[in-house]
């Protein structure tokens, strides 16, 4: 590693971390929604969890991102955790703040909990395989960071901008376009706040403990980093055994007395290199030798073996009960999805966005990063709380009480980083039926009040809801579900409360709607001939 001086490694790492952190944060909080979906796609191709999901589902950009990450990891170890991961950077921020408060009490080496860590990784994958993204939802670092940002930072930012807009509007109306105040869903906000508190507490007390126990990306990268070309090593002859490296290692992976670094737990932050008073620590190729370095290292630690044993025991104990627990919950949930004959049954399961293909597919792939929630122009996408069951906590749903799906919009699919919402061209999107409308004739204003209304028909983009003559001159809504796409415009516009007289019941598996029949009105090439008055 002569191209870069050892002490500059940390600066490069910090620069990269801050760049990713700022870009990802802005993308998630973007109050003006000016980041083009294509840019979002490229940026998030470098987020390990979503990129893996999308690469497996569709290939494309995500594969390129993954290839880069794989190469970086094989070369430099878990550099991702310190130079790319936004949740890692958030933790580093907390760690820095904590450092200000307690200069003396620092970290000490603890044997990595590989059993727990790899066990959780396997459990996460098992859950995904069984059709629940629950653990990934709560531990995958991009998704955790994203929902914290969308649910807490974004509203704060919007509040700030709107405050400035009101102040400006006071001086000159229309000077600043205020941002539509996004609805804050209290359960989602509180859950995100809870996650933020947890992350803060973990990093305040134990540095990067999250990364070495709960994080599935950290586990995966840890495995790869065991064979990385470059790694951080302690030169035994230069080391004076002062223990400073161990005290400053936020990953708690340096065993100073034994001059060992647990490579799989090391997040490659390079902090130790700069802190070593004798410059004994360096980032080196595994093939390069240094004066006084023993190769191979003496006295290999025996703890990893213990870790393997732990992991096996853990899986033996935990696997069957968890599988047994998750399967029935999936089945009961699917059963309720089929009962769509009444208002309550229809509302018991949420409608999922076009491109998600089926509720089961969607809930098994979405890790609730809420990028679609913050990108959706109409705000119809809102985080669910327990509507998808505990396994689908915070996954976004179509909330027609807030808005409806814009006919000419495909934003959610184009930004979704995991592929849970597939990207679609506008023509196909317009034919995806995510649900079907039901009309409760007796509750309709036209029947109950004998007055014209037709707000539903007015808003319907396909005229699946048209109007036909009723009593006298009144016009009453009439439904053609073959061309209904379930966008919810009718339900949103219906003035009847609390139960809408027209509502959308979800399609458990999305269907293809027929194309709305086009009219061909007689054209007047010259325009009007005579005024009829």
């Amino acid at each position: 590693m002569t191209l870069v001086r050892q002490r500059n490694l940390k600066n490069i790492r910090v620069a990269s971390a801050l760049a990713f952190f700022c870009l990802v944060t802005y993308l998630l909080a973007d109050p003006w929604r000016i980041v083009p979906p294509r840019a979002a796609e490229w940026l998030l191709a470098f987020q390990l969890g979503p990129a893996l999901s999308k690469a497996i589902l569709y290939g494309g950009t995500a594969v390129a991102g993954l290839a880069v990450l794989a190469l970086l990891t094989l070369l430099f170890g878990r550099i991702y955790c310190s130079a790319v991961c936004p949740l890692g950077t958030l933790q580093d921020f907390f760690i820095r703040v904590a450092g200000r408060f307690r200069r003396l009490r620092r970290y000490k080496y603890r044997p990595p909990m590989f059993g727990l860590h790899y066990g959780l990784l396997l459990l996460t994958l098992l859950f995904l395989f069984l059709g629940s993204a629950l653990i990934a939802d709560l531990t995958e670092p991009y998704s955790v960071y994203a929902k914290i940002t969308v649910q807490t930072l974004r509203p704060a930012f919007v509040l700030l901008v709107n405050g400035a807009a009101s102040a400006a509007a006071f001086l000159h109306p229309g000077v600043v376009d205020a941002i539509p105040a996004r609805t804050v869903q209290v359960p989602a906000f509180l859950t995100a706040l809870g996650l933020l508190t947890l992350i803060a507490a973990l990093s305040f007390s134990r540095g990067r403990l999250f990364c070495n126990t709960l994080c599935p990306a950290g586990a995966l990268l840890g495995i790869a980093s065991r064979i990385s070309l470059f790694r951080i090593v302690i030169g035994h002859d230069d080391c004076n055994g002062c223990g400073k490296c161990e005290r400053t290692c936020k990953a708690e992976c340096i065993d100073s007395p034994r001059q060992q670094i647990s490579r799989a737990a090391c997040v490659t932050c390079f902090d130790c290199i700069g802190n070593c008073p004798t410059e004994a620590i360096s980032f080196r190729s595994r093939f390069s030798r240094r004066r006084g370095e023993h190769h191979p290292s003496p006295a290999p630690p025996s703890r990893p073996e213990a870790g393997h044993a732990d992991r096996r025991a853990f899986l033996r104990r935990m696997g069957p009960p968890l599988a047994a627990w998750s399967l029935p919950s999936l089945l009961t949930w699917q059963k309720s999805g089929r009962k769509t004959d009444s208002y309550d049954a229809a509302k018991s399961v949420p409608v999922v966005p076009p491109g998600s293909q089926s509720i089961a597919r969607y809930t098994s792939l979405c890790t609730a990063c809420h990028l679609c929630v913050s990108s959706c122009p109409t705000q119809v996408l809102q985080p669910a709380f327990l509507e998808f069951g505990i396994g689908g906590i915070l996954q976004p749903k179509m909330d027609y009480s807030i808005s409806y799906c814009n006919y000419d919009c495909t934003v959610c699919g184009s930004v979704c980083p995991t592929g849970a919402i597939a990207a679609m061209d506008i023509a196909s999107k317009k034919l995806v039926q995510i649900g079907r409308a039901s009309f409760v004739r007796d509750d309709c204003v036209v029947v109950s009040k004998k007055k014209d209304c037709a707000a539903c028909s007015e808003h319907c983009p396909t005229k699946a809801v048209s109007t036909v003559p009723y009593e006298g001159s009144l016009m009453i809504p009439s439904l053609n579900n073959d061309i209904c796409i379930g966008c919810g415009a009718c339900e949103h516009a219906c003035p009847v409360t609390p139960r809408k007289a027209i509502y959308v019941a979800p399609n458990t598996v999305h269907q293809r709607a027929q194309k709305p029949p086009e009219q061909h009105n007689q054209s007047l090439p010259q325009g009007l001939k005579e005024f009829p008055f």
Partner: protein
Amino acid sequence: MNRRTFFKHGIGTSLALGTYFTHGAFSNGYALPPLTYDLVAVKGGDPDVMFDKGIDALGGIGMFVRRGMSVVVKPNIGWDVGPERGGNTNPKLVGRIVEHCLHAGAKEVVVLDHSCDEAERCYRNSGIERAVRDAGGTMAPAHSEGYYHDVVIPGGKSLTAAKEHEAILKADAIINVPVLKCHSGTRLTIAMKNMMGNVWDRRFWHQNDLHQCIADFAGYRKPVLNVVDAYYVMKTNGPRGISTGDIVTMKAQLLSTDIVAVDTAAVRLFGMEPGEVRYLQLAAAAKIGRSDLDHLSIRRITV
């Protein structure tokens, strides 16, 4: 083309208009003469050109907008569709009206609508946002309740109170610029129905006799001028429309200070009878305006 070059080059009738204004006929304090016509009907030109002719026949925009006034131009920007779909007022017409107002010395010209589809997309994709900015006007956001304030509708039968947009409340004059369309709820949407975009809570109207609410609101808030865009007229699947197949290219425009008269004429233009649109009957009965076209003085212009 911005409004300066437009007037400088004297396109349309602007040369005549320009001379008129530079003579200072309508400086502050000048009493307005009575209008020559109750209704002006124009056909056969582009929306902007037809407006030039039509407003000229009424004596120029200076009959309605005087120096220093704050003007709101209220088009229909309800839907996320392009100009060729006829779902929103033609952007060329809106832009031209803004130009005229500013030339007449308006302090500011604000354009807004409480859209049905997502507001930003409606403003952008209707082409109106660009046309207004190019003309020197301002688009006012209207997508959140904070912009609307309580007003009382005196004499309203169904609608006795509403929340109206603050830009309209502050304005000295409103120019109402609807587009003529069929409507699955009220049969037709023209000038009176277009005023529904001034308020926040439209569900109340839908729940409490929509026709009566439209008539009540027309009695409360009278625009200084109504300009009905009947260039692309949506004959089927209104008010949003499904495709350009819903459109008949009529190339017409109606101008009047009388909202009932202009709606009555527009109903005829569409090919229906005024009796078929209930809110129009209610408004005529409440003497909000005149529906006896035969007794109105009408100027008919073919471009």
